[in-house]
């Protein structure tokens, strides 16, 4: 537990320092075409890190699902489900931060932009994943079914991104985003902080589940 406190403390320090930079230190950018953007660009320091860790979470679910099917160790199933749980939570925040930004930037809260669409579909895929888990008693069959769905769902997310790519995107490019070095560094700090917080939340969820099992077993 001490390691958890320690890494969480680091993450919060990074997060607070990053937020301080993002919200108070950095000057407004020049955006003559769309004046609200002068301040609103700061959203990027929150939106991108949350999204990056959510995507990492779905990838962990995919990896743990494959490992479960190969080894049949229920601990992989636990990792897959808890990573998906926190990733769904983070995707919710991604969608919300994206929407409040999209309104002034693109005119409407929802635009069916490729990235928006992918995030939303992934969100529904993993809500379906939990619906499936809810509908089955804990144990081998549930772990197998949800692992298989976890793999299908990830593939569908990739295809959603691919299929919407044939339409033009409004979203700024993810890679090759041009930021001043200091801003880029702050973004890096925020991404690190978000990933540490994400992993810790997953770890705590797993620990909680293990303790629950221990208690019910007596």
């Amino acid at each position, binding site marked *: 537990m001490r390691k958890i406190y320690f890494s969480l403390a680091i993450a919060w320090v990074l997060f607070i320092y990053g937020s301080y930079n993002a919200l108070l230190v950095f000057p407004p950018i020049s955006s003559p075409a769309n004046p609200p953007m002068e301040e609103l660009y700061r959203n990027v320091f929150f939106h991108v890190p949350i999204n990056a860790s959510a995507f990492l979470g779905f990838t962990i679910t995919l990896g743990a699902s494959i490992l479960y099917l190969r080894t049949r160790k229920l601990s992989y199933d636990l990792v897959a489900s808890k990573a998906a749980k926190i990733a769904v939570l983070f995707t919710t925040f991604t969608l919300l931060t994206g929407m409040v930004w999209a309104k002034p930037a693109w005119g409407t809260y929802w635009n069916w932009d490729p990235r928006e669409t992918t995030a939303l*579909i992934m969100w529904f*895929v993993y809500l379906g994943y939990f619906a499936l888990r809810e*509908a089955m008693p804990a144990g081998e069959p549930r772990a197998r079914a949800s692992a298989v769905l976890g793999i299908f769902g990830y593939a569908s997310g990739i295809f959603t991104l691919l*299929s919407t790519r*044939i339409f033009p995107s409004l979203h700024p490019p993810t890679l090759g985003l041009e930021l001043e070095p200091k801003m880029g560094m702050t973004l890096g700090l925020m991404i690190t902080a978000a990933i540490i917080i994400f992993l810790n939340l997953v770890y705590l969820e797993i620990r909680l589940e293990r303790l629950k099992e221990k208690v019910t077993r007596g």
Partner: protein
Amino acid sequence: MGLKAVFNLASKDIRAELRTKHTINFMLLFSGLAVIFFSRIAGNYVAAAPEMGAGLLWLVFLFTGMLGLGRAFVKEKELGTFDGLKLTPMSSEEILAGKAIYNLALMLGIQSIIFPLFIIFFDFPIQGSVALAFGVLTLGNLSFVIVSSALSTLVLNARARELLLPVILLPVLFPVIVTSVSALNRVLVGGEGFLNILGEIKIILAYAVVMSVIAALTFDFALEE
């Protein structure tokens, strides 16, 4: 075993279905009703904006398939022949392929009746080739049956499986349905030819291939009990 076993399984299901016609009749009735409801509710709007038509047509297939395609395995479960099916010396991929072919036959049957019915009821002005539109629909339905056959076994032992299947199936199908609707629109309304919708066709084909591979790799686990 091999291809022969796959076709034997598919033809067994098709013959059993032709004898009772339970599933196909219900699916046809349901899809016919859906077309008539859509036509009454949205017919005038589709006449003004024909781009809406392809999406509505796909919704009809989606709802019908959602209700009917899961039956391929549920039926075996209800009749108590599911264990017999697993005891046959067929590999799990062969069982999946057989069931997917049976489901495809169902969807093709529905498609050949509902597509003309849709054109008639909506008085749909067709600009492009009908054969190409039918081909695009078939390709979309192929992807649809692969994924739904594979995922329908996951819910066999779950509570409220009829409700659960659409919830897990729809988001996984989203990319292929959207692409198929876009391709269908470009053919039916835009009057575009095969080469113009090649991008969409490639995505649908790639989706079908990738999902078949995942289904074949994971179906062993999905069949276990």
